[in-house]
């Protein structure tokens, strides 16, 4: 997507402002910078900064939303500049490799457009005793695809008599997704430990995969990735790994609308898997009224009263209690 590249001559100041706007909005969504160009967004940021030296504006000291550019954005929208759309995968899912294995993390909010459909759903799916998979995208698609591959892996285990390998799960997933040409909207972070060691992969809805030491997917992926990029190092201990994953998910929860509620973590090591459901609950739900919603008489003002006598339609004849 060379939108910025081709239009360099357009107006460098305008470009600088749009770019700065993206940097300001926490958990910003890259315009169409989805799977296909995942390495470039980070590089693009660096390029943008060098261009924007000219009309520099003061950035707010610490995160937060600056309303300075709203009028400018409105003016640009009038001029016909298309604002970037929202990615539909409302989730933050992450994974990282630490010294003994893999840690996977996910938020627990399921959304239906702007409405939270499930405040505490499970996004980390079981694939095999040593392989788990986080799913972003359409919930039904991720559930169905992970169930199906989990079933296939079980049959494979029976046939071979061996523990399943992560690459097997990976290949089964990617072939299925590719054959559906991206219509199965499932973006997955697959992690596990097998005889060949710990593995972490990302799978995109069209069927491409990446193998990475740390990965994030979903609408909160940029927020989470910023945490990983700054704090990840090789040879993390278990506690450090869990802490880093929780921090990344929390970044997604607090900065992305599509992610929220709690943090689920899954730690997979050689021979042992721990699924820490609701490892952190940073959004406790407090029910204000424990008494319930009962209204005492007199709280509602009666404006008018009209009583209608109903004609007696049914004759009640004396009979036995249980007579039909």
């Amino acid at each position, binding site marked *: 997507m060379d939108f910025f590249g081709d239009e360099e001559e357009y107006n460098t100041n305008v470009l600088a402002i749009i770019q700065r706007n993206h940097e300001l909005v926490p958990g910003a969504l890259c315009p169409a910078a989805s799977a296909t160009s995942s390495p470039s967004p980070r590089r693009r940021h660096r390029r943008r900064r060098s261009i924007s030296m000219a009309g520099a504006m003061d950035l707010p000291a610490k995160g937060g939303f600056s309303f300075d550019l709203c009028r400018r954005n409105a003016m640009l929208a009038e001029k016909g500049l298309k604002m970037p759309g929202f990615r539909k995968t409302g989730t933050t899912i992450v994974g990282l490799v630490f010294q003994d294995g893999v840690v996977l993390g996910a938020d627990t909010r399921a959304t239906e457009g702007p409405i939270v459909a499930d405040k505490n759903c499970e996004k980390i799916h079981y694939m095999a005793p040593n392989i788990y998979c986080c799913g972003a995208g359409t919930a039904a698609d991720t559930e169905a695809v992970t*169930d*199906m591959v989990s*079933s296939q892996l*079980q*049959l494979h285990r*029976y*046939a071979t008599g061996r523990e399943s390998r992560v690459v097997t799960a990976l290949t089964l997933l990617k072939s299925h997704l590719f054959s559906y040409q991206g219509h199965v909207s499932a973006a997955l972070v697959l992690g596990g430990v097998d005889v060949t060691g710990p593995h972490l992969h990302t799978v995109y809805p069209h069927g491409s995969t990446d193998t990475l030491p740390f990965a994030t997917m979903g609408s909160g992926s940029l927020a989470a990735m910023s945490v990983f990029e700054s704090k990840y190092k090789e040879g993390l201990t278990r506690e450090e790994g869990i802490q880093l994953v929780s921090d990344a998910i929390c970044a997604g929860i607090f900065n992305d609308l599509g992610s929220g509620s709690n943090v689920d973590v899954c730690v997979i090591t050689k021979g042992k898997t721990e699924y820490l459901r609701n490892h952190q609950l940073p959004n406790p739900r407090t029910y204000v009224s424990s008494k319930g919603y009962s209204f005492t008489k007199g709280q509602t003002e009666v404006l008018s009263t009209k009583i209608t006598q109903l004609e007696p339609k049914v004759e009640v004849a004396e009979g036995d209690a249980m007579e039909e």
Partner: protein
Amino acid sequence: MGDSQYSFSLTTFSPSGKLVQIEHALTAVGSGQTSLGIKAANGVVIATEKKLPSILVDETSVQKIQTLTPNIGVVYSGMGPDFRVLVRKSRKQAQQYYRLYKETIPVTQLVRETAAVMQEFTQSGGVRPFGVSLLIAGYDDNGPQLYQVDPSGSYFSWKASAMGKNVSNAKTFLEKRYTEDMELDDAIHTTILTLKEGYLVFLICCFCLIPLFQSNLIEF
């Protein structure tokens, strides 16, 4: 009898009302290696003799007892290759059941589906019946269960049963030894004794299922 004229076609009844091919399949089973199973009060055990054609055969590559699910196992008497095909089909059916109902398949359901497969092969064109009888042992919510499935597709629930060579001796022995409130250890002991009754036994495979859906495969 006029049966012999009808013995070659699977899908033709003989005048005496039998499907002679299935009778022949049962004969094939009857000449296979002995296998037996006992249902105890707290578990099930199935066992078979693992007789190899020569000492040069790698015995770890021969698997006469297989798991279909973590709490259901199966042993056979008869033709090994037919057994492998049935095991594969049964495992797939167990997985399909799980994907449909999100419940681990109960023993009776799996037995029924396996028996249905075996029956299909007695009513289709161009195929022959399976030359195996299966003993399916499982432990689920209804407790320990033992079923025998025949090439015809009929299945029976047994408290104790034997198949293959020497079946009459084995069954008589089991009838004498079996008690309703047998514990699993007793059952294993009885199984081994029954197998040894037959003849010189080289290798025995034993498979037992106990509560908590654990299964153990022992070979000695």
